[in-house]
């Protein structure tokens, strides 16, 4: 298990501006934060506050206008696309509001997809890990099911297993329960927390749901493009 004190994500003075001149929109105005291994951090804030933009930058899917970003100690900005893709593959996992599974593949195949970013042929340890993860998220009997035959909650669990297959230092989750009913939502959140603990993976969860935020280790609140407050959860 990774040491709790290890910084897995470090953002400094992140600024993101869309457009130029009078049409410029300043979405992020100098955001700085760090997330440590095993932490379960919520990112809350009203719509349009810049949550998704910051999460996208943290996930290296979007480049900031200025500022610096380090993932697992590796500075990301200024690197070429191939190198950034490698960083994403090795250190980051993603869970989206919509599961974004590949419908033409089984649950098991979906979980293994990120491995192809690192290996031409999936090695046996990854095959074993994929089985373990699917078992861990309660889909032992659904491994070979086409994802189109799974329920919304099951699909999101497959997405969680997929996010963890490469043993990332941090998983970025954008409204991971946004499309689920309360029961499924609670199950998925419980699962994320367990996995964060068991795998030592940090989770950075963007959410509108206050009850989810309250169950996190830490809450970061985004307001008007700035992280205005950081406070521990009350749970």
């Amino acid at each position: 298990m990774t040491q709790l004190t290890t910084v897995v994500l470090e953002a400094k003075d992140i600024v993101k501006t869309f457009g130029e001149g009078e049409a410029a929109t300043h979405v992020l105005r100098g955001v700085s934060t760090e997330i440590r291994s095993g932490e379960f951090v919520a990112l809350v804030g009203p719509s349009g506050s810049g949550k998704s933009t910051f999460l996208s930058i943290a996930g290296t899917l979007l480049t900031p206008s200025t500022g610096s970003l380090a993932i697992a100690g590796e500075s990301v900005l200024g690197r070429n696309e191939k190198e950034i893709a490698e960083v994403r593959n090795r250190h980051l996992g993603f869970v989206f509001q919509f599961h974004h599974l590949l419908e033409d593949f089984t649950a098991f195949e979906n979980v293994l997809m990120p491995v192809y970013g690192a290996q031409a042929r999936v090695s046996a340890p990854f095959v074993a890990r994929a089985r373990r993860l699917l078992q861990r998220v309660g889909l032992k009997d659904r491994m070979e099911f086409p994802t189109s035959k799974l329920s919304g909650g099951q699909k999101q669990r497959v997405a969680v297993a997929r996010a963890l297959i490469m043993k990332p230092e941090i998983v970025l989750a954008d409204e991971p329960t946004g499309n689920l009913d309360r029961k499924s939502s609670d199950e998925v959140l419980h699962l994320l927390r367990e996995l964060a603990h068991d795998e030592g993976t940090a989770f950075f969860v963007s959410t509108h749901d206050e009850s989810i935020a309250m169950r996190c280790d830490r809450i970061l609140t985004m307001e008007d493009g700035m992280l205005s407050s950081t406070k521990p959860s009350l749970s």
Partner: protein
Amino acid sequence: MLFEAKVATRYLVSAWRQSALLMFGVSVGVVVFTFIASLMNGLSVRLTEDITGNVAHVTLEPAPRLPQTFMASPRGRALFAIQPGHNVMPVIRNYRSIIEQAARMHGVRAVVPEVFGNATLARGEQTLAVAVTGIQAKDADVIAPLTRSIVRGRLDLAVGSIVVGSRLAAELGVDVGDRVNLRAANSAASRTRSAGAEAVMVVRGIFTLGVQAIDERVVYIDLTSARKLFDVIDGVSMIELKVDDVWQAPALAERLGRATTLRASNWLNRNTRLQEGLRAQDSTANMIKAFSLLTIAVGVASALFLSVSRRRSDIGILRSFGIGRGAIIRTFILQGLLIGTVGALVGAALGFGFAHLLLYASMKATGIPSIPIDPAQGEYLLAVLLAMIVSGAAAVLPARSAARIDPLEAIQS
């Protein structure tokens, strides 16, 4: 390539109806390609065979005599000159050594010595100009299939016998067994007796080669009679050759011309219209084939663009995992190649079957099909290779557009 192959095949299988339709489209393009190749090449072979089957592929003749100046004045004026007449027949004296030399050359199938001259053929008051070919009986079928072309009588080239074309026979009003008078219009004995030798011959056979110029003007007699008629004491007036590959005839003729100092011509020199026709036919066929390949390209490219659009979210998510642009490009090009390969193989098989079906359906009682299709000339391997290349190339643009998809945009949309 394992990932690319896995994703490409899965995408094709999961949308199997669309894939099958697309492969069928490629197949149709390949069927058109192979059908046109079978038809046009078959027609070309038939036309060439029809023409080269009845004529010499290479002809060696003495160079035409030029006016000779026997004594030239220092001031540049000729004192005596001989202007050869049109009715003087040049002769190849050393024909035996030339025949041996030609027969030894690679690609030469047969060498036939001939005495060829102009004459008139008369029966009663009807007189017609004819071209007399004097050949040995053993060579009768070498240049043209005379025996097979006899429609009345038989191929008899004994002394005193003559075999005439059917149109000529009809015009002259002669039949097998009739006597005709053959009078030479030129002669090898140039200065003493330029023309006028004649012989009474019996018509032994009437042939139809199917070539109007031959059927209405050519008569065959034996070599000895021809020599006597045209005063060729020793030698022949031309040597004709058949070669294995008719398209090599120009090169062979050139080599023979250089080696013998004789004037060497080939069948293509005498059939420039055919050459032009075949070239035009080739261009047309190539154009149709190019259009069939273009259709394949457009079909594959548009289907893959559609596939890229449908898989936009998949591509975005794969890119977010760190799957590189190269892998995405290879995945879609592989789809194009798979579609092209399967479609082309099926198309080649269908084209082969279709060509055979058409061949048998158009077969006449004579054993010659009314449609000059030749299934063996379908260029199937070329069609398959080109269809594969075109399909792969057509996939490049959609593949590049897939690789350009921004993962964030694709995921958010």
